[in-house]
């Protein structure tokens, strides 16, 4: 697959000056919309996760007319609900030396120097307000006996800044946003459309002006127009088929916006989470994450001997290799995700993995139980242990859990500027759907923070600034709408017309395997070239052999899936291309060719300290636009967690 290099991106619209003043400056310079005009302005929000839910609620509260969509039957079910571990904030309630600056520093470093300082600083600043907002909404964060909020430490950080609500932090935060959203729906400022899937973006006169959606119950193709469109449609980890994401997570909304001109930033940056329950069979439909917080008290080990098939309890202490503690003495079991994942892969590659297929390592709580008592462990992790037992049928109090890395999060996403606006004016992208704040690797408990920062605090300001100029927006041209509707209908008709002999799921599974094997935890020129051969061939077969039963005019889950898989095929290719062109290793992107002597990721700052923003090109050769990254505050160093 070929690509061309286009104009670099010069301006990200971040204000100049000291990093700690930039967000204030931007807020002050933002133009305001007067209340009477707000009522006449409509904003479409796709997605009701932490990002979309909080954005829609806040915009509604501010007085805009909001139209909101999600593919589930209720906004409360967005995938954010599944987040377990917690949310970071630089509150320094513990007095353990945390500060906005330290959170900023940790995030830039954790992202392996591939994120923007301005954005990350703002994120750290706003993090403080998020906790206040959530608590006021009634989010029942864990508390200590004195009634104050409890925190814990999380991978990649040496301070305790992660707020949590048992193992259900995402659920509680999302319910807070959902309730705020429902309140606005009752107030009439937000119109909610559940079971609606966005299938295209309407661009008119160069601006994003609406969306084409399919009513998933009746099959009706609807057009919704607005003055601005916000995509908060989540991540695309499901391109791997097996991931910790919800089954419905997809790339359709952002991919189709990409095809309409929005650049795609860093598509290859994928986070592989180290603590998931290993695969048990061919039929498996998704992978389940065990919260990373388990690494606070659990110890990771494998047998020292290759192919040691004794049960864990029969392996004596001195024949166990606590490899994370051995290799990374100062961070031990708490090293960042990418490092922990690759270390697990390495020991399994050496033949020291445990469980079926040797694809697993132990996460052992025996020490913790001895030290804290079974009750204390049960209090802290009881629900996670139960979940593990429900899935595997094994009791983690008696034998160590088995874990293995799995695809978890996508740092890549649509490219946005400091205002969270994409390259299409009027198209804003927030939450996991954009590429913005995590660089090449996201720290644990930072996605929830980013989604809510975007939705509650950043976007409402920057959208306002954009809409202040709405006086000059023209009417939406009918032919632009018609063209988009035709595209959507055409694609559905094509899928229905194939009438082949394989289900969309079977293709998705195969695509996922290609991605995992050749564009997964470790990538090489060879593996990526291989993937770039296999994917187009499989895509071609998909369009020849896929079978979609039923019609468009009904609830048709086979059709929904086929549409999403079709988009995954196109995205997968761009991911491999991006991974191929970035010959360095950084964060979650590990190129076999670029490693230190000890096997750690080796960055190439000379050549790759940039964001790769890809432009869609109908003729099949994407255009690469580079946004150079500069570090004024955090010195670029080789990351070390030793």
């Amino acid at each position, binding site marked *: 697959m070929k690509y061309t290099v286009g104009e670099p991106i010069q301006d990200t619209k971040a204000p100049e000056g000291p990093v700690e003043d930039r967000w204030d400056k931007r807020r002050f310079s933002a133009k305001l919309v007067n209340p009477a005009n707000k009522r006449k302005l409509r904003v479409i929000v796709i997605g009701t996760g932490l990002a979309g839910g909080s954005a829609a609620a806040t915009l509604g509260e501010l007085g805009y007319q909001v139209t909101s969509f999600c593919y589930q*039957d209720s906004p409360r079910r967005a995938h954010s609900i599944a987040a377990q571990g917690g949310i970071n904030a630089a*509150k320094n309630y513990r007095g353990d030396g945390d500060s906005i600056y330290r959170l900023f520093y940790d995030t830039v470093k954790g992202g392996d120097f591939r994120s923007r300082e301005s954005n990350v600083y703002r994120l750290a600043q706003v993090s403080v307000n998020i906790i206040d907002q959530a608590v006021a909404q009634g989010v029942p964060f864990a508390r200590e006996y004195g009634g104050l*909020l409890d925190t814990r430490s999380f991978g990649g950080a040496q301070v305790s800044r992660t707020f949590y609500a048992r193992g259900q932090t995402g659920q509680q935060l999302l319910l807070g946003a959902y309730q705020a959203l429902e309140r606005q729906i009752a107030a009439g400022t937000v119109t909610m459309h559940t079971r609606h899937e966005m299938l295209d973006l309407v661009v008119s006169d160069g601006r994003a002006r609406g969306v084409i959606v399919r009513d998933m119950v009746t099959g009706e193709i609807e057009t919704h127009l607005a003055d601005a469109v916000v995509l908060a449609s989540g991540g695309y980890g499901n391109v791997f088929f097996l991931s910790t994401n919800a089954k419905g997570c997809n790339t359709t909304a952002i991919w189709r916006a990409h095809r309409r001109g929005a650049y795609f930033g860093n598509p290859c940056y994928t986070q592989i989470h180290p603590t998931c329950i290993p695969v048990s069979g061919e039929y498996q439909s998704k992978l389940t994450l065990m919260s990373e917080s388990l690494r606070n008290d659990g110890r990771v080990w494998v047998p020292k001997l290759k192919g040691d098939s004794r049960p864990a309890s029969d392996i004596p202490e001195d024949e166990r290799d606590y490899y994370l503690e051995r290799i990374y003495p100062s961070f031990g079991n708490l090293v960042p995700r990418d490092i922990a994942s690759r270390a697990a892969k390495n020991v399994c590659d050496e033949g020291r993995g445990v469980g079926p297929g040797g694809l697993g390592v132990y996460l052992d709580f025996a020490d913790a139980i001895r030290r804290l008592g079974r009750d204390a462990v049960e209090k802290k992790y009881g629900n996670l242990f139960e979940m593990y037992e429900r899935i595997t049928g094994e009791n983690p109090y008696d034998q160590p859990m088995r874990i293995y890395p799995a695809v978890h999060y996508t740092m890549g996403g649509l490219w946005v500027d400091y205002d969270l606006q994409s390259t299409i004016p009027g198209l804003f992208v927030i939450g996991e759907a954009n590429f913005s704040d995590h660089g090449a690797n996201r720290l644990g408990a930072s996605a929830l923070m980013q989604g809510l920062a975007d939705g509650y605090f950043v976007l409402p300001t920057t959208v306002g600034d954009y809409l202040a100029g709405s006086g000059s927006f023209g009417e939406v041209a009918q032919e632009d709408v018609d063209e988009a509707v035709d595209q959507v209908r055409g694609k559905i008709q094509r899928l229905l017309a194939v009438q082949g002999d394989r289900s969309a799921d079977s293709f998705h599974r195969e695509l996922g395997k290609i991605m995992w094997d050749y564009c997964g935890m470790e990538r090489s020129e060879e593996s990526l070239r291989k993937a770039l051969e296999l994917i187009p061939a499989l895509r071609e077969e998909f369009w020849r052999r896929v079978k979609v039963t039923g019609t468009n005019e009904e609830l048709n889950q086979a059709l929904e899936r086929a549409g999403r898989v079709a988009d995954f095929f196109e995205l997968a290719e761009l991911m491999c291309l991006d991974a191929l062109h970035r010959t360095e290793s950084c964060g979650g992107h590990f190129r076999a060719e670029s490693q230190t002597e000890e096997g750690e990721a080796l960055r190439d700052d000379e050549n790759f300290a940039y964001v790769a923003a890809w432009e869609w090109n109908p003729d099949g050769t994407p255009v690469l636009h580079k946004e150079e990254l500069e570090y004024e505050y955090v010195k670029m160093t080789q990351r070390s967690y030793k």
Partner: protein
Amino acid sequence: MSGMNLTLRVWRQKGPDDEGRMATYKVEDVSPDMSFLEMLDVLNDRLIVAGDEPIAFDHDCREGICGMCGMVINGVAHGEQRATTTCQLHMRHFKDGDTITIEPWRASAFPVVKDLVVDRSAFDRIIQAGGFISVPAGSAPDAHSVPVPKDSADAAFDAATCIGCGACVAACPNGSASLFTAAKITHLGLLPQGQPERDSRAKAMVEQMDAEGFGGCTNTGECTVVCPKGISLDAIARMNRDYLSAK
């Protein structure tokens, strides 16, 4: 590999206006490590290849937290396994040769959309009526300005774990949504932040629950048994109290 062979009796209904019927399917070679939904995936894949419409069912997270999945399995909402959503139910709890009956949630406030998919939007409208604390973004005081005693926070959390799946309604002989509604009233009513709206919330939510056509609670207790999050009947008692004493 030889797995279990099962017979499924599944509710099929083309749409809201179709009458619906039970259909029987044989599924062979089911692994005990599969989840219930994976077993249905396997059946659906075979149906698609055979040119038959797959069985529509709702699901998303497949880890027991989004509340999207739900079917009545052998007469019990989410199946007989306690504290488990349908997506977390594993086939190791069934035996070779079993016949399994699968039906959608039954309640007139949850009309069937297709096959096992029902419309639960009534729950959203109950929340709209008052299941929130009004606080515009940016107006909140510092999180530590109001300490919350740990036991209130914990009890509020227990109620807040409701995933809105609707199993309680499906199991209740009266088709009552009391457990769901009460869980939210309890969650918010136990926290200091929830006090200003406590009375109006209880009144509005109970009345919306009635307006949606759910039945009344006669303290049968079926709901709490099938509830995957084990929401307790205490919540209903608290809702009753808040409702009756609301000004």
